[in-house]
């Protein structure tokens, strides 16, 4: 009887823990990024780009290293070759069927040479050199009222195409609930358009449960990475990752290792100040945040950018702005053990302007306080950490 009870207890323990991956302790180091910069990209883009270059996508399955970007002011789509560091082509958006009637272009994804995915406020299109080869409407008033859902990006989760299952993934949020309400966070934040069934399906991925209990102001940018049949979701206020298995439709909580600089929890933000943008900005400056998450299938690494807590005011009386926050990039192995953490130089790199290439991880040098950055260029350092 005693043995049976023992077995039952063990079985219960395994069941309870089956949706959580255990944390493994591993010794890791804190390194300087300079040691791992293997190459740089510098492209003269004078008169072609807007300064912010917020919309860009590196090609996931092109034969050559390519990057596309959009100048919203000029309504132009550019393609650059990252190896030759030259512009390959430029097209007017209207000439490829992307017209203002469907709203501003807000997300792009470069799948391969003959497939560029463009998401506008009210439409998703796939274009090739001849123009639109696929089109579907989204976010019509009828749809918003009926589904109470808006398909819009809430962070670093841009439109993405998975060719295996022919699915176009895009973010969503509640049309009905405000950001101070629990229902906003306990809500499916991802959908996909199934190109076979021609339907939009919602995925049961929500915000991390920490958001159900407290309000965190503007710290709500969700980031995600694709790894074959897994999608991994990261949230600013926690090192934990939620993994979604596309085939089994199950979720797993991954207790990834924290940043070396993560020494205290993120403070919530007072709901009564929810409409005070200035206070929310100050909260963002002072708070840590786990930022963009990327998967490198060439090296089987995950990269996650991180920004620690900093004080609003320094000892010398000067104030810190968002641009003064330091950044690191945490490199994880396939089980989210921290291999190392690289210290990015302050005010040099833009942690949101990053992508994975065969050569390594490209990090944009267009930090707005980088005095060495010429806004008429596209400029990246490529880092490669040995695996």
């Amino acid at each position, binding site marked *: 009887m005693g043995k049976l009870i023992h077995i039952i207890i063990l079985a219960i323990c395994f069941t309870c823990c089956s949706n959580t991956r255990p944390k493994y302790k591993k010794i890791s180091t804190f390194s300087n990024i300079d040691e791992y910069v293997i190459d740089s990209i510098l492209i003269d883009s004078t008169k072609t780009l807007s300064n912010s270059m917020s919309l860009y996508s590196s090609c996931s399955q092109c034969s050559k290293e390519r990057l596309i970007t959009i100048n919203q002011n000029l309504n132009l789509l550019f393609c650059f070759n990252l190896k030759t560091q030259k512009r390959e082509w430029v097209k007017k958006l209207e000439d490829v069927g992307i017209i203002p009637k469907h709203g501003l272009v807000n997300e792009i994804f470069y799948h391969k040479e003959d497939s560029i995915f463009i998401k506008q406020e009210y439409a998703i299109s796939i274009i090739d050199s001849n123009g639109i080869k696929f089109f579907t409407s989204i976010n019509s008033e009828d749809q918003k009222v009926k589904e109470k859902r808006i398909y819009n990006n809430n962070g670093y989760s841009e439109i993405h195409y998975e060719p295996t299952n022919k699915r176009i993934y895009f973010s969503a949020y509640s049309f009905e609930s405000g950001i101070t309400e629990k229902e906003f966070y306990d809500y499916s934040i991802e959908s996909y358009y199934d190109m076979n069934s021609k339907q939009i399906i919602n995925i049961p991925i929500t915000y991390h449960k920490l958001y159900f209990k407290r309000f965190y102001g503007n710290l709500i940018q969700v980031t995600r990475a694709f790894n074959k049949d897994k999608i991994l979701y990261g949230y600013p206020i926690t090192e934990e990752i939620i993994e979604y298995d596309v085939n089994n439709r199950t979720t797993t909580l991954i207790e990834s290792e924290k940043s070396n600089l993560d020494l205290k929890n993120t403070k919530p933000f007072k709901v009564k100040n929810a409409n005070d*943008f*200035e206070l929310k*900005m100050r909260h963002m400056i002072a708070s840590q945040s786990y930022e963009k998450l990327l998967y490198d299938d060439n090296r089987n690494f995950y990269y996650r950018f991180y920004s620690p807590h900093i004080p*609003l*005011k320094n000892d010398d*009386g*000067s*104030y810190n*702005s968002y*641009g*003064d926050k330091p950044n690191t990039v945490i490199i994880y192995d396939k089980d989210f053990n921290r291999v190392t953490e690289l210290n990015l130089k302050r005010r040099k790199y833009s942690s949101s302007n990053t992508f994975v290439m065969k050569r390594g991880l490209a990090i944009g040098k267009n930090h707005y*306080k980088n005095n060495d950055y010429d806004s008429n260029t596209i400029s990246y350092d490529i880092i490669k950490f040995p695996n």
Partner: protein
Amino acid sequence: MISCTNKFEREKSLIEYLTMSHGIDVTNETYVVIHQTNFCNSCTEEIVNYFNNELSKNTQKKWKVILTSPRQDLELRYLKHSNVELLIDNDFLLEKHGLAMSYDLFFIIKEGKVTNWARVKDNNLEALDVFFVN
């Protein structure tokens, strides 16, 4: 927010910024506008029009207009007025002094102190009229 009585929380930083970074004399009455050109909802057409109007009407007053980043269109508009000194915060000193905010700011400064100030948004422009009544 329009404030005649609430103290601007970073008044000391503001005076330091104006005097040390730009050598502005803050003893005589001076009108200061800070346009947060990096923020989407700041520095709108309505706000710029409003101040350009007031500049035309209050030609005896000394104005300092500070832009957080270069903006040729704004520079051209403000430079038409002879009573404006236009300054551009090229070195992020406004941020260092805690004055880079998500809304434009307006101050009346006299004898080294802020006598009146306001957060400037599209929907409170009429309320600023109280500062310009002679």
